[in-house]
């Protein structure tokens, strides 16, 4: 789960990181009021779960409250990578002396949280990593001991030769690490970490991504979820324990298992079709899941045909068949349905489907070719 900048900053502040004051606005008038209260130049920043906000025009410097109102009006409602901006953070603009990058990610290769720090921070940090990798220091942390002071100091001195700054940076590293562990993060980032002309170290932007598997034991973090900033069909699917991602095509796909779901979409594309979605109904499916899956898919008016591809292992194919029958009785489908299922209880599933007027294939390749032919108008349903 992604946190907004303002939420990540709130957490970092609790762990002691110095961050310029800021408040969230949902209207231009609120943005103006906040800027008036601060009585100084502010930044107005789009709060949306996408990278590249600045480059998309979602981050603006504002000299006056009137300016903040105007810029907020432009940013609110703007679309960044398909997501509508519903909130802006209005924050005191910092005087920037230098910009560093500090990030932690759980690294697959070392199987540890790894610090990455660079004195060349800012929005072009990925380019720095690609072109001048020597400007980035990597440091894996053994979680059983945590980040020791000497390690934090090594990182601090990599950023600043001045001992006072190095010490202050080391403290930020330890605070960031503590926030990372306590919040169940898979990623936490301060970029830029700024040294002001007065020699203070402050975090001007912060990002946190929470491991979804942590949310059950961290209700305080789960409470930060902002459903208004997500695709509504994806929110709906999650509530019914389905994994759904909306795409642009016209072949609706219902599959069990993420790997098979991706392979099914790939095969649709291979035969010249375009998948309308990724949808994984998961392992132990009950008929109710299938009903919800069909409802969510058919709400997308682009969908011209629906493909079921079920390989029953834990999933019982008769449960899926019952779900299809129940769902289509309650809400008759307006688009053709192609069913492929094989595996656990397939004889029973085939009987349920045949008794209710459906046909089904046992072969994945054949079913995908069939559904693509239908949407291309080459074959009747």
């Amino acid at each position, binding site marked *: 789960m992604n946190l907004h900048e303002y939420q990540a900053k709130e957490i970092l502040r609790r762990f002691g990181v110095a961050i310029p004051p800021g408040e969230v606005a949902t209207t231009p008038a609120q943005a103006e009021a906040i800027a008036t209260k601060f009585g100084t130049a502010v930044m107005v920043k789009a709060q949306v779960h996408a990278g590249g906000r600045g480059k998309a025009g979602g981050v603006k410097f504002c000299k006056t409250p009137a300016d903040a109102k105007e810029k907020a009006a432009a940013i609110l409602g703007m679309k960044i990578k398909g997501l509508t901006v519903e909130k802006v953070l209005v924050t005191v603009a910092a005087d920037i002396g230098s910009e560093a990058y500090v990030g932690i990610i759980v690294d697959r290769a070392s199987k540890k949280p790894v610090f990455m720090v660079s004195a060349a921070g800012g929005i072009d940090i990925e380019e720095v990593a690609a072109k001048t990798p020597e400007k980035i220091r990597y440091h894996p942390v053994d979680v059983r001991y945590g980040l020791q002071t000497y390690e934090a100091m090594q990182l601090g001195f990599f950023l600043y030769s001045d001992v006072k700054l190095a010490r202050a940076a080391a403290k930020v590293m330890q605070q960031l690490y503590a926030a990372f562990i306590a919040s169940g993060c898979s990623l936490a980032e301060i970029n830029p970490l700024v040294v002001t002309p007065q020699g203070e170290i402050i975090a001007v932007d912060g990002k946190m991504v929470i491991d979804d598997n942590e949310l059950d034991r961290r209700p305080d973090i789960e409470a930060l979820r902002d459903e208004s900033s997500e695709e509504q069909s994806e929110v709906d699917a999650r509530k019914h324990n389905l994994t759904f991602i909306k795409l642009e095509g016209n072949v609706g796909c219902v599959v069990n298992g993420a*790997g098979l779901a991706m392979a099914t979409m790939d095969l649709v594309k291979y035969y010249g079709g375009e998948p309308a979605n990724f949808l994984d109904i998961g392992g132990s499916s009950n008929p109710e899941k299938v009903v919800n899956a069909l409802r969510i898919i058919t709400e997308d008016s682009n969908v011209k045909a629906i493909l079921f591809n079920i390989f029953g292992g834990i999933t019982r194919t008769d449960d899926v068949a019952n779900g299809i029958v129940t769902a289509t009785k309650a809400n008759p489908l307006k688009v053709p349905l192609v069913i492929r299922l094989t*595996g656990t209880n397939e004889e029973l599933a085939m009987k349920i489907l045949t008794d209710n007027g459906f046909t089904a294939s046992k072969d994945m390749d054949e079913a995908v070719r069939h559904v693509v032919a239908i949407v291309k108008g080459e074959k009747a349903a």
Partner: protein
Amino acid sequence: MSIFIDKNTKVVVQGITGRDGSFHTKQMIEYGTQVVAGVTPGKGGQKFEAVSPRGEAIMVPVFNTVEDAVKATGANTSVIYVPPPFAADAIMEAAASGVQLVVCITEGVPVLDMTRVYPFVKERGVRLLGANCPGLISPGQSKVGIIPGRICAEGSVGVVSRSGTLTYEIVYQLTRAGIGQTTCVGIGGDPINGTNFIDCLAAFEKDPQTKAIAMMGEIGGTDEQEAAAYIKQHMTKPVVGFIAGQTAPPGRRMGHAGAIISGSAGTAAEKIEAFEAAGVGVARRPIDFVDLIRARLK
């Protein structure tokens, strides 16, 4: 022959009395796996009843701890079906109790838990498979986990995969075409897992029965690229690979850390290119495995 498990594998099931644990224990015993013990704290002394492939009733003793189970039965492999909040502890308990292989089926284990578990297991010289994996099967000998037994057949192809149902799909297509397997291993899709592609490739390379390897990867991370580099340098046996997610849309990625650490977006195109550069046969569709593997077995 086979890798990691064979007919002598003696299994202890952690979470044997739970919903998933009891169902899959019955399936394993029905397949012929030697399930010698179960563990559920507080249910020590009970018996778990199942039916062998020959139709005999089997009574599996249940213990309070893995330590007790191993001491009493000589179990050398553990399989874990406990809920996610208890999985990390269950893995460590197994690794500390003297088994050589721990297979964790549980899905949804927090990744920070795995950063603690991994060094614990490694330091004890124990192999961990998973978490969030379907387990493994050596057809005709033993299955540990949830891979359906009837889709497999004995043969000479080693299978290793990051996914669950996609593995079943491809194994099923191989079996239908008359191509059997030595061992099918699901390594799981979590960011930190105990056993990776390279571990399995190295084991298949050493296994005299295995003549060719089918591997299924997915988008994300760089495991497949590292496996490709390993294949190029160390493998004499032919490998055929597939990458799921060729059409997955680029994510609305947050932050820069992911791209900085891997130097890669983990796209299907990058992985397929790495396969091709390493001389790995690339299956564009699941069904392509059949012809590509068959050609390499000749």
